[in-house]
């Protein structure tokens, strides 16, 4: 390794996803000298294609092939680069449900995180990302299939709110928006940070956070792929935002945050799966916004249905058939509809470190298995009520939802949370209600790792609001209270 580089900052933020980019931009605009370190690259939507394998390799950590160990194994795709997973998610935005926030106050002692306290932070993010409800026209015919089914059954449903402005429905959100319509944090907050004088370093592999005398002092990283060198950032404040899987790894190898025994534990995932339906009409699932519609009739039971769709390559990989049946169903791709379900899980996993890499252990518990079974049965009901000719559930041939075993399930997860959870008591959590690492001055965490429980809804807005609140707390200011627009006032919470 050649010579090193040193930088000095008021705040060093590690990770440029939903949490890190937001906290970095808000701090820089508030007058702080900020250095943002990102392990991945800066991506340009002008280079994006609509080829899933190409984009998986470019935009996802490990090519989107991160898998949990356990029963059953769960595919856990994570974004990488400026924007993090906001670069490749569906853009769905929910405020944290009030019942979840109530639980945080009650069970985790997080008094400052009630709905009223967080409202200004939510409003600020919603305004920054131009969050708005998808129109029926843009939602496409895949959403219409689900809408028809839900309406026939009398189930509560609606169009989702998303952070995409001027979306034209290219249908490939999960592979990077090729038109730049999606307002991921890499294309919104990072430019704000840079305009405010903040510095961004990509391809920065942070190795250690140095703490001396109980206070954070600096961050040490390796930068540069071809000629690696060291980078040291001297800062009195450090915000870790590497994501739920990698934040506990960095803290652990820095010898920080282990006091409670909770670091790396309490992993919730929102296990998810999806079914297909063969319709008489041409659906063209990929035309429109893939995740544009939800059914929340069973949200109180921990089951939420959300749209999912994609181009043929994506559908072929997800279609739960094999051999000739798979080929025949794919030949009818234009008539296929798809819809997903996710469960608000009570199972908890753990992130370990093996040879410097995360090893994620997660077993689906009995209560969550019951939710998945129930969700699959309801998904079939939804498709049939919409007029499906055939329904393809992600189960082995002959297996029905009610007798599905964990090993029968084909699960994915997109919302890892909780591995450095917030708790008022240092014996029970890694950070406190202000997201400060217990026992270390100047060190905070601002990503999904701090979220102490499953949310039951997509978490990006929660993470962004927590990051906004943290930034203004570090600036010793209140989050400005913006006059809500009509849409914000109507925001479903």
């Amino acid at each position, binding site marked *: 390794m050649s010579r090193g580089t040193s930088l000095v900052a008021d705040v060093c933020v590690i990770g440029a996803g939903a949490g890190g980019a937001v906290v970095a931009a808000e701090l820089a605009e508030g007058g702080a000298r900020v250095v943002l370190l990102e392990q991945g690259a800066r991506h340009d939507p002008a280079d994006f294609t609509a080829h899933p394998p190409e984009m998986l390799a*470019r935009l996802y950590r490990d090519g989107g092939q991160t898998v949990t160990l356990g029963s059953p194994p769960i595919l856990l795709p994570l974004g990488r680069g400026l924007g993090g997973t906001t670069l490749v998610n569906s853009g769905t935005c929910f405020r944290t449900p009030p019942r979840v926030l109530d639980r945080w106050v009650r069970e985790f002692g997080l008094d400052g995180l009630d709905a009223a306290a967080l409202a200004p932070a939510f409003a600020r993010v919603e305004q920054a990302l131009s969050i708005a409800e998808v129109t029926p026209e843009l939602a496409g015919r895949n959403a219409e299939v689900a809408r028809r089914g839900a309406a026939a059954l009398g189930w509560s449903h609606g169009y989702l709110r998303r952070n995409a402005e001027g979306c034209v429905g290219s249908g490939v959100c999960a592979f990077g928006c090729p038109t730049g319509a999606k307002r991921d944090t890499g294309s919104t907050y990072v430019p704000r940070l840079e305009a405010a004088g903040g510095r961004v370093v990509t391809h920065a592999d942070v190795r250690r956070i140095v703490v001396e005398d109980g206070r954070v002092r600096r961050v040490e990283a390796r930068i540069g792929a071809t000629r690696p060198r060291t980078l040291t950032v001297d800062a009195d404040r450090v915000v870790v935002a590497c994501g739920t899987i990698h934040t506990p790894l960095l803290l652990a190898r820095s010898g920080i945050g282990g006091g409670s025994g909770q670091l790396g534990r309490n992993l919730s995932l929102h296990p998810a799966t999806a079914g297909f339906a063969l319709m008489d009409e041409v659906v063209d699932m990929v035309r429109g916004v893939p995740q544009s519609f939800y059914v929340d009739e069973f949200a109180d039971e921990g089951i939420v249905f959300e749209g999912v769709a994609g181009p043929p390559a994506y559908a072929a990989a997800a279609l739960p058939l094999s051999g000739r049946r798979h080929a025949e169903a794919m030949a009818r791709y234009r008539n296929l509809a798809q819809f997903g379900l996710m469960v608000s899980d009570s199972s908890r996993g753990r992130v370990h470190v093996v040879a410097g890499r995360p090893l994620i252990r997660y077993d689906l518990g009995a209560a969550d298995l019951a939710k998945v079974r129930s969700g699959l049965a309801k998904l079939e009901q939804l498709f049939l009520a919409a007029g499906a000719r055939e329904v393809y559930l992600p189960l082995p041939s002959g297996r029905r939802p009610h007798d599905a075993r964990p090993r029968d399930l084909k699960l994915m997860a997109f919302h890892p949370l909780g591995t450095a959870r917030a708790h008022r008591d240092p014996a029970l959590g890694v950070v406190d209600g202000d997201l400060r690492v217990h026992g270390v001055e100047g060190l905070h965490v601002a990503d999904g790792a701090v979220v102490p429980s499953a949310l039951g809804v997509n978490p990006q807005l929660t993470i962004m609001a927590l990051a906004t609140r943290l930034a203004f707390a570090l600036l010793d200011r209140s989050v400005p209270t913006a006059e809500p627009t009509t849409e914000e006032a109507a925001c479903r919470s």
Partner: protein
Amino acid sequence: MSTPDGKAPVVGAGVVVAEPAPESRALAARERFLRAAPPLQRNGLRLLLALKRRPRGAQLLAHLPAADQVAHATLALLRYDDQRAADTLGWDPDAVVARGRALRERRA
């Protein structure tokens, strides 16, 4: 046109999807996709794909449902990304991207 049961015809029936052509974009994408996986996983996936493409290997995988599923899903992802397969299903990725960018430019 209608089917005997009076319902509308399904579109695109009868498509057979083959391996991507050598030198194709899909084949290059396959390599990049496999290279992106963590080392142990990458080697395991290459082994599974090799088995899945051979009759006796496929028979062996049939006894290992989880491994078979991984191999099947990966092969399907790669095969249906090939332009010949996508064309028959009404999906032209380059045209979708071009149309989207043109629409956005017109609105700007």
